[in-house]
């Protein structure tokens, strides 16, 4: 097999590969044959189709009954009064339509993190936490039109939540998870909790919401005895970066002293971290790693300049370098050794045009912060 290695040649690799080849042969000895498996799939297809037809019929009757009851009772559509039994057909979607020229009735945050950019949406036990600004949330095109989300629940939640959605102001769908194998609904259960406590809530999932483009989208989160609606106005993340282009207000040197930002010893999973948060930097040798803490979910814009003389600061490598560094929202997934909710961005080149005292302004949806470093230009 042609193999592109990850660049870290390791004598252990060959041992791993040869072991896996031997082990794979040993472990599949005596298993079902391909013919048996094909026959099983055929049999399932034969039995599944009529069963599905029956299910569709049952679902249609149930939906019609619920709609009839609603008309009779003239109830508001946000909540359902009855509890969805675990095996019952899911409750019908009750999301409002948004006509041409109508504003998207975006959900108000039920609470906000201290710095304001990470909002909690949803009025039920299961909520979603995501980056928001002025009622808009942001999707990233290079990640398959994905809105990054943290699905959280209150610590007492013990049931199952079913999340579905659709576009409200035009044609468009909502999917979840894998862009190549998207699911039309998301089922959340506290059986595989990622973190027992993130801001006082259980972190259930980090699967993104996949949409079909900018627009107004509605989500319905059904749990036992409760149905909540969340409405989002989705915009491309480029709009968020444009909003972050605030005027540069860099600190000035104190006399001849460079006001270097002290190291942060509270962040221990990466060494040599500088900054007071929510965005931190570490690195050396002309490269930097950027780190965001759990309160900062949104995109990050970094720009800077020399403050004790003439000098420019560019980010990136070679011809790819630019005067600003755009850190996308990115997945909220954490890796081993990385605390839940923290994000580490790829390493980026930091290229000062001359050695000196440099300040960097870090703009996020929640505000601005500054980091000052002495940088030495290397040949």
């Amino acid at each position: 097999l042609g193999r592109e290695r990850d660049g870290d040649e390791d004598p252990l690799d060959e041992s791993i590969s040869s072991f896996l080849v031997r082990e794979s042969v040993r472990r599949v000895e005596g298993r079902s044959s391909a013919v048996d498996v094909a026959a099983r799939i055929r049999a399932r297809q034969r039995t599944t189709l009529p069963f599905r037809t029956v299910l569709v019929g049952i679902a249609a009757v149930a939906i019609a009954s619920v709609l009839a009851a609603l008309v009779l009772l003239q109830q508001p559509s946000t909540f359902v009064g009855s509890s969805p039994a675990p095996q019952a057909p899911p409750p019908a979607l009750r999301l409002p339509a948004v006509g041409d020229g109508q504003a998207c009735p975006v959900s108000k945050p039920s609470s906000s993190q201290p710095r304001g950019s990470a909002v909690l949406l949803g009025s039920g036990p299961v909520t979603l936490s995501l980056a928001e600004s002025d009622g808009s949330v942001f999707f990233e095109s290079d990640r398959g039109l994905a809105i990054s989300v943290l699905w959280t629940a209150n610590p007492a939640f013990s049931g199952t939540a079913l999340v579905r959605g659709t576009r409200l102001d035009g044609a468009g769908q909502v999917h979840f998870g894998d862009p190549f194998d998207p699911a039309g609904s998301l089922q959340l259960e506290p059986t595989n909790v990622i973190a027992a406590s993130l801001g006082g809530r259980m972190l259930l999932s980090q699967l993104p919401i996949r949409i079909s483009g900018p627009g107004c989208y509605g989500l319905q989160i059904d749990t036992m005895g409760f149905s909540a609606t969340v409405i989002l106005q989705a915009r491309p993340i480029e709009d968020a970066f444009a909003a972050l282009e605030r005027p540069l207000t860099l600190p000035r040197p104190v006399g001849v002293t460079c006001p270097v930002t002290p190291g942060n010893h509270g962040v221990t999973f990466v060494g040599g971290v500088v900054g007071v948060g929510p965005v931190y930097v570490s690195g050396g040798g002309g490269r930097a790693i950027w780190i965001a803490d759990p309160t900062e979910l949104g995109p990050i814009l970094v720009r800077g300049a020399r403050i004790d003389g003439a000098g420019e600061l560019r980010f990136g490598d070679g011809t790819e370098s630019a005067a600003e560094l755009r850190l996308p929202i990115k997945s909220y997934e954490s890796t081993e050794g990385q605390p839940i909710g923290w994000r580490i961005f790829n390493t980026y080149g930091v290229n000062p045009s001359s050695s000196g005292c440099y300040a960097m302004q870090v703009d996020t949806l929640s505000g601005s912060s500054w980091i000052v470093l002495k940088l030495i230009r290397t040949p």
Partner: protein
Amino acid sequence: MAEAVILRRREGVTVSSLEDLVTRKYESLLKVAVLVCREPADAEDAVQVALERAWKHAHELRDADRLEAWLHRIVVREAIRLEQRRQGMLARWFGRPPETIVDPLIPHDPDFAMRTAMNDLPVEQRAAIVLHHYAGFSVEETAELLGVPFETLRSRLKAARRRLRISLGGSPIGS
């Protein structure tokens, strides 16, 4: 799903029926699945789910050259899901940490140390190792298959190698 659907793959192979698809893909996918989830019965289930889904949705696959990756993606994710479910059930039933599957010690089994070390890896790390070191996917492809960012996958592979090295200690590797 019409039987007439023909999947054209990069090397010009055509797959013209469910039986043909299963015959071509079953064994290689089963090996990947069993290396990830360790339990052969679960591995069979994962592969059956993948092949069934692939055949059902074959007409939706816009780029037929992606069949291989598509199948691996479904198989590995299903294998991870089944492994996590089994670990969770074991923990609930026995009230102890998830077990480590180690086959009865075969005298002079040269792979015993490596097998134990691989079994001790978290399933996400084991899946990354299997896709990269066994199935031959690049780091980028493996990251895409597992639905994680490139840097995350690199970290995961490094962490897995570090754990393997620690677990293997001073024992001869694969000797």
